[in-house]
């Protein structure tokens, strides 16, 4: 097991190096070059020259790359053009918001998707099966921002059941030691704040979770249908085990492997989808931050944000791989 983890960690090195190279050349391909990208469009010739000297942009390219690598390894992404604050500080504020949203979306899609897929398989060809099939097809065909807009319009604007934007009501004041607002509210023991943050989470999480929900439901259905016809399931039934015990211990447990695989694959989709969902609900996470950065041509933020998200994505994939190896011993030896 340890060997597997070490091997996967070593495989990360070329990916991360390649990623840094890609971003490095990306900065150099930006309109106006890196110095102007750092300073903004209205930079003077002197300040551009100053920055070029400061960052060694007048040196040979390979030297520049190593200098760049040195700063990135220290997670130093420079200063935001608009706020004049270190990009890393802003990531520290924004990132928990996105993770909280992504986790809530994942929780929603797993808690609804697995039972839905299971019931659809059990009632194969029945009403639930057909409805879930149609639902999941529409789920993967609807643009996430369109769904988000529809949900917001229906439940927040028309019915007024849930808040339209943000993470917490303005009037509620809770300290934010972790910046995960749900956790913060629990730590503060403030029930009102907890209810309020959860209410703010519902719509964005449902919108973001819709595609994973559709995918998870489909895979669960297929996996359960596959496993149901296995000999060991027939044996379990034949020896007179209660149907519920067979379903949980034999069917669902063995169907779980493809399901966990697909849940892991949704991580990238959640990070991409978060950009769009956050924009609709003015969620102060990485997504809205990056979209603002495009509008203001804030390249240090774009560079740091994309690099950071890619890093998180690579690490999540690593964790997913390791967890498969724990669930399925066959992977470790291949």
């Amino acid at each position: 097991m340890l060997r597997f983890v070490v091997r996967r960690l070593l495989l990360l090195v070329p990916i991360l190096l390649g990623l840094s190279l890609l971003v490095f050349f990306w900065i150099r391909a930006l309109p106006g070059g890196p110095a102007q990208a750092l300073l903004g469009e209205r930079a003077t010739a002197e300040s551009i020259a100053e920055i070029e000297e400061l960052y060694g942009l007048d040196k040979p390219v390979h030297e520049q790359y190593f200098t760049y690598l040195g700063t990135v390894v220290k997670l130093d992404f420079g200063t935001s053009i608009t706020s004049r604050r270190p990009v890393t500080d802003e990531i520290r504020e924004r990132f928990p918001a996105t993770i909280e949203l992504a986790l809530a979306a994942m929780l929603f899609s797993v808690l609804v998707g697995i039972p839905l897929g299971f019931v659809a398989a059990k009632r194969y060809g029945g009403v639930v099966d057909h409805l879930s099939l149609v639902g999941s097809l529409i789920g993967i065909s609807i643009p996430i921002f369109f769904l988000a807009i529809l949900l917001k319009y229906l439940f927040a604007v028309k019915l007024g059941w849930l808040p339209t934007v943000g993470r917490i009501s303005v009037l509620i004041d809770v300290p934010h030691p972790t910046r995960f607002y749900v956790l913060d509210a629990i730590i503060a023991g403030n029930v009102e704040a907890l209810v309020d943050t959860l209410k703010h989470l519902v719509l964005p999480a449902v919108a973001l979770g819709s595609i994973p929900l559709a995918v998870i439901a489909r895979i669960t259905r297929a996996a359960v249908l596959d496993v149901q016809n296995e000999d060991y399931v027939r044996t379990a039934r034949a020896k007179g085990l209660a149907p519920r015990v067979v379903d949980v211990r034999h069917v669902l447990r063995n169907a779980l492997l493809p399901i966990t695989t697909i849940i892991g694959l949704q991580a990238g989709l959640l990070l991409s989808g978060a950009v769009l969902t956050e924009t609709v609900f003015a969620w102060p996470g990485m997504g809205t931050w990056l979209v603002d950065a495009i509008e203001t041509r804030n390249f240090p933020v774009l560079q740091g944000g994309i690099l950071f998200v890619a890093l998180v994505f690579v690490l999540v994939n690593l964790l997913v791989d390791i967890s498969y190896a724990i669930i399925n011993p066959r992977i470790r030896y291949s």
Partner: protein
Amino acid sequence: MSVAELEAREIALERPSGLWHDAWHRLKRNPGAIVGFVLVLSFVLVAVFAPVLAPYDPRRQGLEGALGSSGPSLDHPFGLDQLGRDQLSRIIFGARFSLLIGIVSVAVGLSVGLVLGSIAGYIGGFVDTVIMRLMDVMLSIPGLLLAIGIVAMLGPGLTQIMVAVGATQIPIFARLLRGSILAQRENDFVLAARAVGVPRRTILASHILPNAISPVIVQGTLALATAIIDVAGLGFLGLGPQDPSTPEWGTMLTDTTRYLQTAPYLALIPGAAIVMSVLGFNLIGDGLREALDPKLRGRG
């Protein structure tokens, strides 16, 4: 006549059923795929005959119904948009853009991915390692963010977002084709071709690629769906066509969401158009996947 000869004649009487023949038979019996075909076919017909079908000029503005003050009527079944343009005509012309967007971005991803994947798969060794590690790096950036990065480099606009969305699909096609070629490379017919001295390039083009292509076709159809959604998403973020009169569905949806309270149909109709075209491609893609699956061959 000997028994062997009789059997040979009987076997010869059975029509040879190739992969495509079987696949077509299975596809015809799949109700989902039929619905998909109908959706896509009507979508393509609308796109092709847009100038004939559209009752008005999609770009002509008017003050009579501006800001969604006039709802759907007999003259304008889908109403007038915020600038008094006929919504139906814009939806009809928008089909052209969506189809174009889908085809161009998939063509970018497919052609580059195809070349890289076949080189990696067929040559192998160091070339394979370099190409595939590069693909891994591209895959390590979530798709939409990669597209945003590319648009930041190229500037906003319809062509730019098509290239950007296409670029995000390169690694998917490259990986798929490489895997498929690796599986085909060791087949007996490839060895036979090599043994009789067929040049490497000809083996790749006429023996390996045709056999490795069916997963690519399935992925290509599904990629059309993803491309339409992704381009609409980039349009929603304000990176779409810079000429605001362009009737592109994603941009139309974005521009009208602020009138959701007073004229919900303005946003709902382009949204529904996107969903239906994407659904069509998804249904065909799913149908093709089942129809081309070798494990299912011979059933039905």
